[in-house]
């Protein structure tokens, strides 16, 4: 739950710093966006079980740097739908039912897109904008806390 670090803010990062971070925390993937630059690190061998820092040297890290403005996947305009309460996240109304929405689906404002179960109550969560589901951030059945991002929605303009 709250052992996530968020990489936000205006400060610029060097590639070395991001690689350092990914290695130090043994992350398989790390994406940092700052000052108009987005850096994404994908480490093929990670997460290696308790490898020392030298073992996990960035030799295996593939580094992609691209200006955010040119990216076809620029995320700046996406709207985040956050959990309005603490509970368990469900993508479908019932275990065997199809999910309310999948990535790429177009949703209306106010459309139910998931359920957060709190105290045995199934709270239907609606999209606050009309748009296309760009990303489902949380996996089905996972616990979520207040304010945690659930979906990224590409709003219709």
């Amino acid at each position, binding site marked *: 739950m*709250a052992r996530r670090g968020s990489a936000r803010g205006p400060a610029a990062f060097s590639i070395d710093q991001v690689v350092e971070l990914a290695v130090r925390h043994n992350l398989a993937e790390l994406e940092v966006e700052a000052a108009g630059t987005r850096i994404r690190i994908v480490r093929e061998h990670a997460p290696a079980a308790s490898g020392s820092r030298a073992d996990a040297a960035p030799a295996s890290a593939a580094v992609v740097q691209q200006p955010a403005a040119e990216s076809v996947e620029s995320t700046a305009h996406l709207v985040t739908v956050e959990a309005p309460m603490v509970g*368990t996240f469900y993508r479908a109304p019932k275990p065997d039912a199809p999910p309310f929405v999948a990535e790429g689906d177009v949703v209306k404002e106010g459309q139910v897109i998931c359920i957060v*179960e*709190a*105290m045995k*109550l199934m709270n239907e969560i609606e999209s606050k904008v009309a748009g296309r589901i760009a990303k489902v951030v949380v996996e089905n059945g996972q616990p979520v*806390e*207040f*304010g945690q991002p659930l979906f990224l929605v590409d709003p219709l303009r």
Partner: protein
Amino acid sequence: MFHKILIANRGEIALRVIRACREMGIRTVIAHSTADADSLPVRLADESVCIGPPEARLSYLNIPSIISAAAITDSEAIHPGYGLLAENPAFAEICRACGITFIGPSPEAIRLMGDKAQAREMAKHAGAPVVPGSEGPLAVVDEAQALADSIGYPVIVKATAGGGGRGMRIVREREALARAYATCQAEAGAAFGSSELYLEKFVEEARHVEVQVLGDRNGMRLHLGERDCSVQRRHQKLLEEAPAPALLPETRAGLYKAALAVANSVNYASAGTVEFLVDRADRFYFIEMNTRIQVEHPVTEMITGIDLVREQIRVAAGEPPSFVMNGNRLRGHAIECRVNAEDPARNFQPSPGTITAYHPPGGPGVRVDTHIYAGYTVPPFYDSLLAKVIVHGNSRAEALARMRQALDSFIIEGVTTTIPFLSRVMRHPDFIAGRVDTKFLEREPQLLQPPA
């Protein structure tokens, strides 16, 4: 014993519970609001769950969110701390219904003691003295007259709908009652739209003395001595000490007996406090029972050497207390001062802000319970308690000297605190002599002002 406990509180008491759990090998989950995301309890608990926005109503008082946080973290029990949901019988009931242990007494005990009139009846029935007075509103002045004759003067006539010191008259002799009754009635009618009055014995020079009790689920109940909390401002305690100074031995024995009788009457199975008023002739009267761990519990811990939060968790898990109480257990004298982010010179106005410098006091017999640190921002959403300074000495004089040195070396900059005020109280001749009652600050208002 529990494996994991969720803490539904914040500030110093959340930290206090985390500390007890760590010593006991219990994992902790802190349920917190967005305003407390950078707090020490969030940093020091094993897990944290954000349960809502800053407003307590939507986070710390939001029962579904707290239960849900306990469910998703597999917490077996919830510690409510003090304030917030600690004395909410509905919350204790919901915990029970959800199969989560509420670390406190039964919802029935909370409900009974939470209703003032019912608590008074229970205490009376259990044999604890209550402030004598009319059972309901008075019908006519003759009824007031007869009642006052039977309970003895002085008496106080109060408006049923009254509050804030209005609509009440202290009557010291029989001749003055009829006129006081009429004035009070007129005042109450004009001020509150209801002229209903009641009458009770006026407890003169009342000291606030309370008895710490502990019960387990097998019916064992014991007391851990008393605390004097007479230095108050509008019924808010500012400092506490144990044992109560200048109490006759037979009064003390009577208080313990009455406190246990009240606790027994509701099968009390947790840590709790039975509060009394003690008058200048050492007569005492039950006022209420607090069905929670209290802010001032450390003074009892200092003179008993017993960790009350740990015992509270033990009995909630169905275990007996870890100690046997006997008369020799109480040792020395302890005082607690509540350091608040308030300005006493401005009617104790809250002073939220960022703490720019922080250095706690130390030395033998000094304990500080706090959640603040240099750079911490005191949020404006919650109560203003910053820290509790607790000292222990072999004698009251030693404890007083320790408290003076502790307060004088406590550095908190960036917000206005009550430290200078507390330091002045520790040097007041009446306090030094143990001669204070609940009207002490009304008599000595200069203590609120910095010396010219």
